[in-house]
């Protein structure tokens, strides 16, 4: 009997430990992202040869123009508002004229296309001539943004230590699962073994073969992925292995994408192909789609079923992003609007309104980041509200969900069956959860994907559930903080929008399951069971990784 109490006490102690531990891991991941950064110093200095005024060049891509919001603002009537773009690439500095009236000259020669500039070259925009000097010639202090204000040049934690922390966390989850109420065996440890092998292989490839110094973003993704997999062990063990295989595929895609978009200028060539490919993929889905749970968003290849819309998400971001000189030369959004409308329309026909909404919101993010035009956004939202009203009219089962919205307990056995269970079991979990494998929500349909937030909250407690949400939501704050430190607007736009997409998808998942919003049917990034979703999450994470200027730089050392 005494032994029983000791055992039980240690089980409870473990449960209390896990949330604190999860907090430490997420904190360390984000802390590490902030550190190991170069100091805020100008990369070049531009010196007005007539007035001697010095302009610091601090970004990888800099707009030169009369507009106050230009990165290098030259107050001279002969300079166009968005005159040209000075950008840095692997092989040096270049200048591109962006349809200015007066043109851009280097050493007196009119530029056409991208022209390389060297130190002491003279760039003429309108009647202003700027000499290119070294960054060190700019003596004034530049105030860094808050995110980099305390950045150190050393990493805050050795990356392998971060991985050890995460591995031990997963081990503790596995141990908790071993001593679950219903089944006691050591199978969870086997799953943990494979999971750990996967994680460390990924780490090895990244640091040793690809020679990347930083691994914190990948570590964060691995932490969340592993958490989802360990929760699956006592639910459908076989699925835990499936999930692991798709996670591995996701990691491969992650590495491939980073390599693929290494040169932001070269990817432009693939833009049209990818756009056509994405539309074709959705078209195949429309023709051969299989209806599952009210939406025909699946196609089967042999024994596999895949969800094309998940992969199109990556294409959607890819097509939307562009480098600064591309942005300034082609301000027309029409092509992208049509592409978006086709994607959202296809999803609506399939009946996958959750994903359709995600695409629409991502479209808003991208359209606004490209154009900065509020009118377009308002117009698009108005159109969407009308479309939404039509959907409610013609798809009564969606309207049903609206009826029970906010009245979960009245519809606890009918329309709001799942939401009622999520709330009950979330509350039953308390702060620290009932223990891995001891939940009751796992017997409810879709608990491992649509309702997974409730599953995490029930088995591991609300603290861990909220930490997971913060970990994913934090990607937006991170992506925004590093916007100006990216190597191109292509990366910063794609990172912000990919993070925004993940965040919005998570919002739909969590708020749908907890009756804050009347929607269900999308997955919680990284944690939900779902192969296509898992792969696409890792693909989207690649955009955020690529926006980090260290990603491509460090590996040369």
């Amino acid at each position: 009997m005494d032994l029983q109490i000791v055992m039980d006490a240690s089980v409870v102690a473990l449960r209390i430990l896990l949330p604190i531990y999860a907090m430490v891991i997420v904190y360390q991941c984000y802390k590490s992202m902030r550190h190991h950064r170069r100091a805020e110093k100008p990369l070049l200095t531009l010196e007005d040869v007539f007035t001697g005024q010095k302009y610091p060049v601090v970004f990888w891509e800099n707009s030169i123009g009369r507009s106050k919001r230009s990165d290098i603002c030259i107050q001279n009537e002969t300079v166009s508002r968005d005159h040209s773009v000075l950008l840095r690439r692997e092989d040096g500095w270049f200048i591109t004229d962006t349809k200015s009236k007066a043109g851009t000259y280097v050493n007196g020669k009119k530029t056409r296309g991208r022209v390389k500039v060297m130190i002491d070259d003279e760039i003429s925009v309108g009647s202003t001539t700027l000499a290119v000097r070294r960054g060190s010639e700019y003596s004034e202090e530049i105030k860094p943004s808050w995110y980099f204000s305390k950045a150190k040049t050393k990493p805050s934690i050795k990356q392998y230590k971060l991985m050890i922390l995460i591995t031990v966390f997963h081990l503790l989850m596995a141990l908790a699962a071993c001593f679950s109420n219903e089944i006691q065996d050591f199978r969870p440890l086997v799953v943990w073994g494979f999971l750990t092998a996967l994680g460390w292989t990924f780490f090895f490839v990244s640091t040793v073969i690809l020679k990347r110094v930083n691994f914190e973003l990948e570590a964060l993704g691995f932490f969340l992925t592993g958490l989802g997999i360990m929760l699956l062990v006592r639910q459908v063990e076989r699925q835990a292995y499936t999930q692991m295989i798709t996670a591995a595929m996701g990691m491969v895609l992650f590495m491939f994408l980073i390599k693929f978009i290494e040169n932001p200028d070269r990817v432009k060539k693939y833009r049209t192909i990818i756009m056509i490919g994405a539309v074709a993929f959705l078209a195949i889905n429309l023709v051969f789609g299989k209806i599952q749970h009210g939406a025909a968003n699946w196609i089967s290849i042999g024994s596999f079923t895949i969800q094309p819309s998940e992969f199109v998400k990556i294409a959607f971001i890819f097509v939307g992003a562009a480098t600064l000189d591309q942005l300034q030369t082609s301000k027309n959004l029409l092509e992208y609007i049509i592409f978006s409308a086709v994607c959202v329309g296809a999803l609506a026909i399939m009946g996958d309104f959750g994903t359709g909404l995600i695409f629409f919101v991502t479209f808003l993010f991208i359209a606004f980041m490209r154009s900065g035009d509020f009118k377009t956004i308002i117009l698009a939202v108005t159109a969407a509200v009308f479309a939404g009203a039509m959907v409610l009219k013609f798809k009564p089962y969606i309207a049903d969900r609206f009826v029970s919205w906010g009245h979960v307990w009245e519809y606890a056995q009918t329309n709001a069956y799942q939401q009622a269970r999520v709330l009950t079991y979330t509350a039953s979990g308390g702060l620290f959860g009932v223990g891995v494998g001891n939940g009751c929500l796992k017997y409810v349909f879709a608990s491992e994907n649509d309702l997974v937030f409730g599953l995490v909250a029930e088995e591991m407690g609300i603290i861990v559930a909220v930490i997971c949400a913060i970990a994913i939501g934090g990607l937006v704050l991170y992506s925004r903080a590093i916007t100006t430190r990216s190597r191109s607007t292509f990366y910063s736009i794609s990172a912000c929008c990919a993070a925004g997409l993940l965040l919005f998808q998570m919002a739909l998942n969590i708020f749908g399951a907890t009756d804050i919003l009347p929607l269900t049917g999308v997955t919680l990034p990284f944690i939900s069971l779902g192969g296509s979703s898992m792969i696409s999450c890792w693909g989207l994470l690649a955009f955020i990784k690529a926006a980090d200027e260290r990603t491509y730089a460090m590996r040369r050392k």
Partner: protein
Amino acid sequence: MKRTWTRSILVYIVALAFFAGLATFCARLVLNNEAWVQQPYNGHTAGSGGLAMAGKIYDRNGTVLAYTEDGERKYHDDYLTRCSLLHVVGDNSLNISTAIQSLYRTQLTGFNYIWGLGMPESLKQGNDINLTIDADINRAAQEAMGDQEGAVVVYNYKTGELLCSVSNKTYDPADPPEITEENEEEYDGVYLDHAISSEYTPGSVFKLVTTAAALEYIDDIKEQTFHCSGSVEILGNDVNCHSVHGDISFEEALSQSCNVAFAEITLQVGAEHMQEVAEKMGFNSNFLISDVPTAVSHYDVTEADDNQLAWSGIGQYTDLANPMQMAIICGAIANGGQPVIPYLVEESSSIFDQLGLSSGGGELGDRMMPEEVAKELGSMMRYTVETHYGDSTFAGLPACAKSGTAEVGEGEPNAWIVGYIDSEEYPLAFAVVVEHGGWGLSTTSPIIDATLEAAILSLDADAQ
């Protein structure tokens, strides 16, 4: 690139909105977790397993009514006692939603949100609950009720302790029936605590309300004489009396329960004052007994014509009363017009209990009638017992009471008796209702007699 940064504000705003939504959810969780947990389908609490580490439930004498042994929920040894307490204590399921084991399940099992429902059994600390109920009185009332459907309520009108609460139909919580489509008629309404959650046509017991209204609003009511010829025609329709009383005084009208006289009195009081007095006595509202609200009783003559008003004054028309409420009215009369609201759960010593559990009682309710009215009404009820029912109906105690035979649409009328004991030693207020029981007094008197007999034994034992 500065522009790109500025424009990322949209994503940033959406992120802030998300965190706001997450905070909203967490706030809802903190505020409502108990309500969310207490759902009949909750796998962590449903069934005997949910009560595996629950605390004990005691009656006022320390008798254990429910306890857990080796992970199994057990109830009082005596079959009849178990049946009589079903609606107070509850069973393993959450079907009887007003019972202690449903309503206070989270407290019994030691739920608090910090730990959730996942604590290992050996570390769970269930809380005990002490009730004001007396198992012996309850058993006696149950035995006297037999198979008759209805409710018995007895409470101490000085302290508010609820001593006896029986609701029929019932079943044995140690061996709950499986209710299927075939036998659902047999168990119709079995999950309802009739003492608290049901309402019945009051019939003549409503005359107490009419009498109180007359005493308050008709100055010469005691000097008036009424004439009963067996019925009276009002607006072309008869109001019938069960007998021909001839010339009859106000006091005799109550003791003989003359409908013709009371029809007249009601019309004299008038709809407005009838409505006001009835509502002061708790009609159209309810009372909280520990955490359980009584069923909302009904009295509405705002749209009634004179015939309907007359019927309403003798407890017919659309009138509905709840047994607990009738006992409270009698308690108020005994207390000089202001009732002590009954309660079921004794004050708990543990600080944890006090966080979520409303326990203890003895609170005064709103005044129901002026003190003089209460006094007059009490002596008229006493007169009724002395001249008609006899103290022997009430185990020899000096009772003040009123019986009622309420006509209901179909079948036999509902039988009622309500009243109180005018005694320092036995300050008891009571209400008994038997559905389709027939004649009020003859049906209810064996029940109230047996119940009070047991109450005397219990209170005598307390006094020693």
